[in-house]
């Protein structure tokens, strides 16, 4: 059992949890993910690590309530336990001194971008970060990102905070300044695709972090297959980070909605509010 030692509610649908998982915290690196299971009936939920504290044995996760299982997760409080928590899974981010790098986090993708940007900064890079969300309520960790970035830009689609527009609008301007060696773009599939399209003409290497449907997370089932440079890859062991210019985005989008109907059924089942013992 893995205790939730702290919970922070950023917005009604975006929440942070610190989980006591010393084995994971000992070895985890930026870019890797964990898989958790709430209880005996739960599915295995993959989440990219948002932060870690090796000494305290803590892994921080941030998630958006988008479906049955993440809503159930959001109902748990500090002091309660998760049944299963396994990691670190996947390959770590390749961190070197590249020079000038841009880290773009869209929506809940700000969470996994944070430790990557921090590691890049520690490796001596000039780190320019761009974070954005649909609206102000869905933004978080502005201060945290500012603290580890040389420059930070913030955008909201509706203009309720920061610049009105998309993270890609700002990214274009930063690239126009010149000398960008590498870009990280993490967020929803459409956002990562947009980031990759912005950098494609200039050929700036762009790393995205794929979060497809997974089951075991150790390369055993192949549920997470994506196509990269016309080659099938398992995101769980070959990734989760890939070259955004080589990812087959249409395929990734199609595969991400494979269980849309089932998700609706599960949600309908949970409409009584869950946790009530009536189902």
């Amino acid at each position, binding site marked *: 059992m893995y205790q939730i030692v702290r919970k922070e509610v950023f917005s009604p649908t975006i929440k942070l949890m610190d989980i006591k998982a010393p084995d994971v915290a000992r070895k985890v690196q930026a870019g890797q993910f964990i898989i958790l299971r709430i209880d005996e009936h739960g599915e295995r939920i993959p989440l990219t690590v948002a932060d870690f504290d090796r000494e305290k044995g803590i892994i921080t996760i941030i998630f958006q309530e988008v479906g049955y299982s993440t809503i159930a997760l959001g109902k748990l409080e500090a002091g309660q336990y998760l049944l*299963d928590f396994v990691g670190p899974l996947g390959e770590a981010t390749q961190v070197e001194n590249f020079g000038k790098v841009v880290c773009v986090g869209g929506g809940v993708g700000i969470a996994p971008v944070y430790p990557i940007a921090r590691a890049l900064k520690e490796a001596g890079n000039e780190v320019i970060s761009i974070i954005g969300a649909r609206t102000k309520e869905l933004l978080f960790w502005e201060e945290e990102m500012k603290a580890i970035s040389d420059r930070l830009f913030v955008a909201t689609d509706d203009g309720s905070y920061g610049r009105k527009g998309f993270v890609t609008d700002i990214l274009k301007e930063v690239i126009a300044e010149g000398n960008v060696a590498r870009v990280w773009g993490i967020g929803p599939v459409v956002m990562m695709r947009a980031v990759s399209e912005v950098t494609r003409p200039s050929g700036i290497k762009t790393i995205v972090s794929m979060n497809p449907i997974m089951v075991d997370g150790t390369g*055993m089932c192949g549920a997470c297959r994506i196509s990269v440079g016309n080659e*099938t890859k398992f995101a769980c062991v070959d990734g989760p980070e890939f070259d955004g210019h080589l990812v087959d985005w249409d395929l990734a989008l199609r595969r991400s909605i494979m269980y849309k109907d089932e*998700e609706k059924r599960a949600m309908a089942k949970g409409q009584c509010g869950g946790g009530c013992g009536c189902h």
Partner: protein
Amino acid sequence: MGAAQSIKEYNNLPAICGRVCPQENQCEKYCVIGKKGDPVAIGRLERFAADYAMEHDSSKPERVPSNGKKVAVVGAGPAGLTCAGDLRKMGYDVTVFEALHVPGGVLMYGIPEFRLPKAVVQKEIDTLRDLGVEIKVNSVIGKIDNVNELLEQGYDAVFIGTGAGLPYFLNIPGENYNGVYSANEFLTRVNLMKGYLFPEYATPVKVGRRVAVCGAGNVAMDAARTALRLGAEEVYIVYRRSQAEIPARHEELEHALEEGVQLKLLTSPVEVLGDENGWVRGIKCLRYELGEPDESGRRRPIPIEGSEFVMEVDTVVMAIGQGPNPLVPSTTKGLETTKWGNIVADEETGQTSLEGVFAGGDIVTGAATVILAMGAGKKAAQAIDAYLKRKQNN
């Protein structure tokens, strides 16, 4: 009870062996009674004796005192659990590291409930725990600690039994359409995650009306029979040779046919076809004929030119075999592997290229049977015992 006791002296998992081992090839084939009529149904007897003991014997096995030596076992499948049980009985302190959230390996995620009830596996695992075997789930060796680090941390020996956990695909166009599963994924969703109880259990599994299972081994039969139970109307085994060459146990094939699984023999898919939403709508297949025997002794299937046809299906399960999962071999420094990624280990002892590191089961042999993996675990336990005694005496 006496029978169960006798079996358990040699076999840590009799209720499992009685159900899934191919006795017709192992022992019943050689049975002298079989020369005049049917052989002694030793598999069924083993199953009964083990089940009877499980139900009626509430006594716990006696715990052997610790000899102070520690052994790590990587992977809680048939090989690892057997090795762990034997070593514990010899007095070693054994810790088993399992990547998934339950121990059992293929017995839990792969073999379906109707063939091997999970409660039976759980009981056998409980017995190992009663013996004093420590099992750590959610522990991915290679990611938390690697094998070299386990040795540095004070384990006197390591046994690797990580199995054949890498699903193969056919590498044909369209394999990533929605509705194409590896057998591993399909069976894991159903067995390990209890997808058949969705939405009570949160992991969904999707089975359409017409299902093609590519391949004809035991795993293919499990997948086909599972698909029927999940409500598929038509389930086909698509296999490029003829019925005589089907690699599944005769018993498994018989059950599948009895239940209504249909065989599409001398047929192999060349492309998966999708609809405008990216879902499977069929598979394009070629017909085959059998030529001369190949190196496996089976007649080689030869495609018939121009024989292409389309099978309309909405779910495809690829059950064409599994390779060695690379997670542990690739993170262990100094461990020799074959070009296919299997760990090189001595057939008799399981000794690998690294001192103190032993391996057995599918990670060494490639995908095989539960009993072979258990045998390898058993031999390795003997070899580890001999190695550690030798080391102590030097």
